[in-house]
C-alpha cells in the first residue's frame, strides 16, 4: 500500500513539475496539464456527442477486433501446436505474414471491404492475431509428455483433452500473447483511423493536428495513454484470476 501511495505521489509531483515548467517555458507545443484537462473537458464532456460518436466507436472496434483475433489465434494456434505436420506446412507462411507491417495492408483492405469500419477491423485483426497465434502454438506444444500420457491412459474424450488439458496448459502463454495483442490493438486502432475514417479517436487527433490545436492533440494523446493503462490493468486483473491455479513457487513454470 505504501508503494502504491509512493508511486502516485511521485506521479502527482511530476504533473506539478510539468505544469510549472510548461508555464515557464510558455511553448505552444507543450501546453500545461491544466490546459490539456480543460481542452479535454470542453471537447468530450461539454459536448458529449464528441465522445459517444468518436471515442466509443473506437473502443468498440478495437475490442471487437481484438476478441475476433483472439478466438482465431487461440483455436488455430492450439490446432497447429498439437500437430507437428500442420506446423511444418504453415510455419514459413506464418513467419512471412507476421512480418508484414499491418498498415501496409490498409490500402488493400480499403478496396476489399469498402466501408471504414470493416477496413479498420480487418487491419486490427490482421495486426494483432500473430502474438496470440504464435503464443498459443508455443503453449500447446509445451504440454509435457507425462500429461499427454496421463490423458491417453485414462482415455478421456476429445473435448476434455482440448478444453481440459491443452487449453489450460497453454493458458499462461496464451495470456502473455493476449496482453501483447491488446496493447497492439490500441496502436492499430489509431493507425487505422488516421488513414481513412469518418470517426474515431485517431481521426480527432488528425483533425486537431490540422487545426494546430495543440491542447486537443495532447488531450487525445493523454486519453490514449489512459486507455492503454486502464486496459492493461484490467487485463492483468483478469489474468491473475484466471491463472490463480499456477504454483506460486519460483521453480515451477514461467517467470
Amino acid at each position, binding site marked *: 500500500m505504501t508503494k502504491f501511495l509512493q508511486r502516485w505521489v*511521485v506521479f502527482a509531483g511530476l504533473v506539478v513539475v510539468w505544469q510549472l515548467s510548461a508555464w515557464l517555458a510558455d511553448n505552444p*507545443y507543450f501546453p500545461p496539464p491544466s490546459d490539456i484537462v480543460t481542452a479535454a473537458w470542453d471537447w468530450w464532456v461539454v459536448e458529449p456527442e464528441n465522445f459517444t460518436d468518436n471515442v466509443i466507436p473506437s473502443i468498440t472496434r478495437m475490442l471487437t477486433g481484438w476478441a475476433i483475433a483472439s478466438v482465431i489465434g487461440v483455436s488455430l494456434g492450439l490446432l497447429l501446436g498439437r500437430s507437428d505436420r500442420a506446423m511444418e506446412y504453415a*510455419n514459413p507462411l506464418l*513467419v512471412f505474414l507476421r512480418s508484414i507491417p499491418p498498415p501496409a495492408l490498409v490500402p*488493400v483492405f480499403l478496396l476489399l471491404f469498402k466501408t471504414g469500419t470493416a477496413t479498420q477491423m480487418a487491419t486490427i485483426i490482421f495486426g494483432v492475431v500473430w502474438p496470440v497465434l504464435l503464443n498459443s502454438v508455443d503453449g500447446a506444444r509445451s504440454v509435457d509428455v507425462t500429461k499427454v500420457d496421463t490423458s491417453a491412459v485414462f482415455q478421456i474424450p476429445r473435448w476434455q483433452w482440448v478444453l481440459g488439458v491443452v487449453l489450460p496448459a497453454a493458458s499462461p502463454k496464451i495470456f502473455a500473447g493476449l496482453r501483447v495483442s491488446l496493447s497492439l490493438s490500441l496502436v492499430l486502432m489509431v493507425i487505422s483511423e488516421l488513414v481513412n475514417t469518418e470517426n474515431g479517436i485517431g481521426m480527432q487527433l488528425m483533425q486537431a493536428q490540422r487545426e494546430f490545436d495543440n491542447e486537443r492533440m495532447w488531450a487525445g494523446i493523454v486519453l490514449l*495513454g489512459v486507455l492503454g493503462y486502464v486496459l492493461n490493468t484490467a487485463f492483468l486483473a483478469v489474468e491473475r484470476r484466471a491463472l490463480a491455479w499456477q504454483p506460486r513457487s519460483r521453480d515451477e513454470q514461467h517467470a
Partner: protein
Amino acid sequence: MRAFTRGIIGIAGFLVLWELLGRSPLLPADALPPPSVVAGELVRQLSSPTFYGHVVATLLALLIAIGIAIAIAVPAGLVLGSVPAVRHATRAVIEFLRPIPSVALIPLALVMLGFGPETKITLAVYAALWPILFNTIYALDELDSLQIETARVFGVGRAGVLVRVALPSALPFIFTGIRLAATTALIVMVSVEILASSQLGIGFFIMEARSGPGRMDQVLAGTVVAGVIGLLLNNGLERIQQRWVAW
C-alpha cells in the same frame, strides 16, 4: 528437408488461393491483383533505382532508430534494474508513458518535427524503447545473486559488476527485447511513412501507388518487400542471437 518441402507447399498453397481469389469475379476488379501480376510488378520495381531508394531509406532510418533506442534503453534499463530507488521513483512515469501508443504521437511529431525523416525515426525510437528497456530490467531481476557475490569476492566494484557480470548475463534477454523492438519499429516506421508522406521510404511508395494511380499491384509489391524486410530483420537478429549471445 521434408519440413522444408512442406513449408514450400504451404506457401505455394497460399499463393494459389490468392491467385484464384484475385481472378475470381467475387472481388471488385483490381482490388486484389493475383500473385502472378504482383510478381511481375515486383521484378520491374526491383530493377528501378527509385524503388531501391525507398527501400534503403526505410532500412537506414530503421537501423538508426534501433541503434538510438538501444543506446538509450540498455543503459537506462541497467540503472533501473540495479538501483531500486530510481526504479520506484520512475515507475509511475514509465507506467504512464508506456501505454501511450507511439502512433498517437504522430500528429504531435509532425507539428514539431515536420515531414522529414526525423519524425519517423523519433517515433520508431519511442516504440522500440519499451521492449528493450523492460527486457533489460527483467533480465537484471533474474540475475543470479551468487554470480554477483562471486565477482564481489574477487574485489570487483559496483560499476564493474554491472558491466562485467550483469550486462553479459542479461544480454540474451536484452537481445530478445531488441528483436521485438525491431519488429515494432518497422510497423511504426511504415505507418509513419504511409500517413505522413515523408517523400521517401517503402511506406511512402505504397501510399503513392494507392492514392495516385491506384496501382494495387504496386501496393502489394511494396507490401511484400516490407514483409521481406521484417522477415530478414527478425531472422538476421535471431541468427546473431544464436551465434553470439547464446548462453
